[in-house]
């Protein structure tokens, strides 16, 4: 029995922390957050050179061929740095969807380019009427027509949709029959330059992670655009989509935990030096207990992330339940720790000049993204057969 990171994973963690401290310090995060695309091509190039962008891409297709636990280690570090950019959308969500659902030709077209940093991919799933994770609520349709499909609809909260080269659009191909959650939903590989696709940036609090609204007006696609697996005649991509969503939930959990860890570290550093009443405020028990409470919530949540990420590859049958547990736990922890860290900073923590708001805003955005905590808890209840 061994429930811990391997030596390689610990090395990956250490080298990622070092690289991010050098290449993505808070000054750079602040600068990127203040600019229009919320993405820095040069930083992206650095990630590509480090081999990060293809971490989940098989070696034969130009990647590192590692597992989700390795990706979670990386996401933890990216979360600590509040690093901007489409890593989660492109290198986790989209790569998993392509790996699980794409044909050989689709994989060959996209995976090597994503791994090399030459293409950014993203998932277009949520709709305006009820922007939640319920598959049965998806309305936007992919109508069949001679030789292919015609996509019609509007998608919200598409991470980095404004600059993605490949959009994996989730469109209804058949009525839900209620078996799988995303039964009757197809994923379509939509190149960003296609006719009828319009993009508009959404204005969001978290400027370190951008998203967009994508309008599909009669977007015509060939039959091969549907991610229906290799040679299979499946009418939908529900399994690939479900796997991609589980990986994303686990990724958000890992990232949130990293952010929480770093926010607490910074708050602890601050209360050690900030003096009131002639002594460091960190010597007051009220302050110590806030920090201790935050630490005692972070540690058990860490074990849930490891378990979920490990189960995703090693015990796929447990993965959905584990993903929902980790997502709800870690996003709640991040929000709690981020607000505690702001509070521990006192007045300065409320200013824009201080960095604390970056953690708080990311915590808020992560909690809302890909199923809020109530949604994931209900899924835990359902999958555990309460």
């Amino acid at each position, binding site marked *: *029995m*061994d*429930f*811990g*990171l*391997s030596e390689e994973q610990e090395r990956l963690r250490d080298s990622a922390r070092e690289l991010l401290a050098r290449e993505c310090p808070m000054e750079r995060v602040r600068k990127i957050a203040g600019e229009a695309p919320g993405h820095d091509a040069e930083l992206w190039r650095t990630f590509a050179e480090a081999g990060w962008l293809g971490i989940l891409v098989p070696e034969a297709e130009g990647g590192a061929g590692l597992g989700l*636990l390795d990706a979670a280690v990386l996401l933890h570090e990216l979360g600590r740095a509040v690093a901007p950019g489409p890593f989660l959308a492109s290198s986790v969500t989209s790569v998993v969807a392509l790996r699980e659902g794409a044909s050989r030709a689709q994989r060959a077209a996209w995976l090597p380019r994503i791994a090399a940093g030459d293409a950014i991919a993203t998932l277009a799933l949520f709709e305006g009427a009820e922007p939640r994770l319920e598959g049965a609520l998806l309305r936007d349709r992919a109508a069949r027509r001679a030789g292919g499909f015609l996509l019609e609809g509007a998608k919200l909260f598409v991470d980095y949709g404004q600059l993605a080269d490949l959009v994996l659009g989730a469109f209804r191909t058949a009525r839900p029959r209620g078996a799988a959650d995303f039964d009757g939903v197809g994923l379509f590989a939509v190149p960003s330059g296609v006719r009828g696709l319009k993009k508009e940036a959404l204005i969001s609090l978290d400027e370190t992670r951008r998203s967009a609204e994508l309008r599909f007006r009669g977007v015509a696609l060939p039959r091969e655009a549907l991610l229906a697996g290799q040679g299979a005649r499946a009418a939908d991509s529900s399994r690939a989509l479900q796997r991609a969503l589980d990986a994303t939930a686990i990724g958000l959990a890992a990232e949130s935990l990293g952010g929480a860890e770093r926010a607490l570290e910074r708050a*602890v550093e601050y*209360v*050690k030096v900030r003096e009131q009443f002639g*002594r*460091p405020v*960190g*010597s*007051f*028990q009220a*302050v*110590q*207990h806030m*920090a*201790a*409470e935050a*630490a*005692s919530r972070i*540690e*058990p*949540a*860490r*074990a*849930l992330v*490891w*378990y979920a990420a*490990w189960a995703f590859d*090693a015990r796929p049958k447990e993965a959905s339940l584990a993903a929902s*547990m980790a997502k*709800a*736990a870690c996003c709640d922890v991040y929000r709690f720790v981020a607000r505690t860290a702001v509070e521990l900073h006192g007045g300065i923590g409320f200013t824009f000049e201080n960095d604390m708001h970056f953690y708080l805003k990311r915590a808020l955005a992560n909690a809302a993204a890909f199923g809020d905590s*109530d949604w994931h*808890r*209900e899924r*835990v*209840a359902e999958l*555990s057969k*309460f």
Partner: protein
Amino acid sequence: MDLELSQQEARFQGELRAWLRAHVPARGRSGPREDLDAARVERLKAWQRKLHGAGYVGIGWPREYGGRAAGLMEQTILGEELARARAPGLIGMMGIQMVGPTLMRWGSEQQKQRFLPRILTAQEVWCQGYSEPGSGSDLASLQTRALRDGDEFVVSGQKIWTSNAQIADWMFCLVRTNPAAPKHHGISYLLIDMKTPGITVRPLVQMTGDAGFNEVFFDEVRVPAENLVGPLDEGWKVANTTLAHERNMLGSTTQTQLLFDGLLRLARRARRGGRPLAEDPPARQRLAELKIRVEALRWNAYRNLTSALRGRPSGIEASITKLATTELNHELAATALDLLGLLAPLYRGSRHLEDGGLWPYQFMFSLGMIIGGGTSQIQRNIIAQRGLGLPRAG
């Protein structure tokens, strides 16, 4: 990452399970309690003897003292399986986990020969004389004095919250031998025969109605000087090596899991508006939240175990586990009481009792665990100061 047991560990687990299936006594229908009458003491001693006969008591002890020098992994499996089989607790736990390892580390050869063999067989049961009325969280301020008089110490003072003192044969006790020294350096670790004249044990009735712990009064109790363990005046150090001794954390996590399973069964039985509460959205939210916390602690226990197996120095894991587990156990019971509605306050003897009165009992008992063994506040102090490096007040 690998969650499989080795072949040897799996065999140990398999044999243990089979043995427990055949030998764990059927549970009485009286529900949980801490009271100990003579018959119950005899039953518990018999259980420990039986478990010892099968080779499952003190397995982490070295062979020369009757153990089998089992590693952390086997000790963990034992703790998990005993909890899962709902086996009775070990009446000699204080001896096995606390005084035994202390004697091995600090005791004289004569002390080891005299005391160790009788611990494993429950021939002698031990209690712990640490807390005093004026010394709880600030244990090192303890005042019970021991004055040297020839070959003896003369002990006077009072201990409190002493579990099992009413049935114990021996007490390991912290006493002040040097009032002039700084408080951590005037304490000694003494072994006291509970039958010595001058000792009075008075049971304390707890809010549960049980009398599990006691006040112990010492009125010029004469203790042979050879019962001193370790150096004179350095008993604080002696006691702390035992406190730092690896605690089996998985056994307690398994108990928390079992408690959650019971809560879920209750939620399926209990109804609101004719529907099981397990189908009621607010109740499902609470249950799911609790399940997530239970699972997090379970995986965290594996994580801590792996860290210990890899030989990494332990930090504040034990404090985080103690804090989180005791608070969660209380929360599980509190949720059960909410699900019970009007039935919640019904207690022992009522005809309408659910689960033998487990939940109101557990609600109270778990609060005791939040306070005992270092309160939640003390754990937060430890986490803040030793874990996060925040400065001590003052």
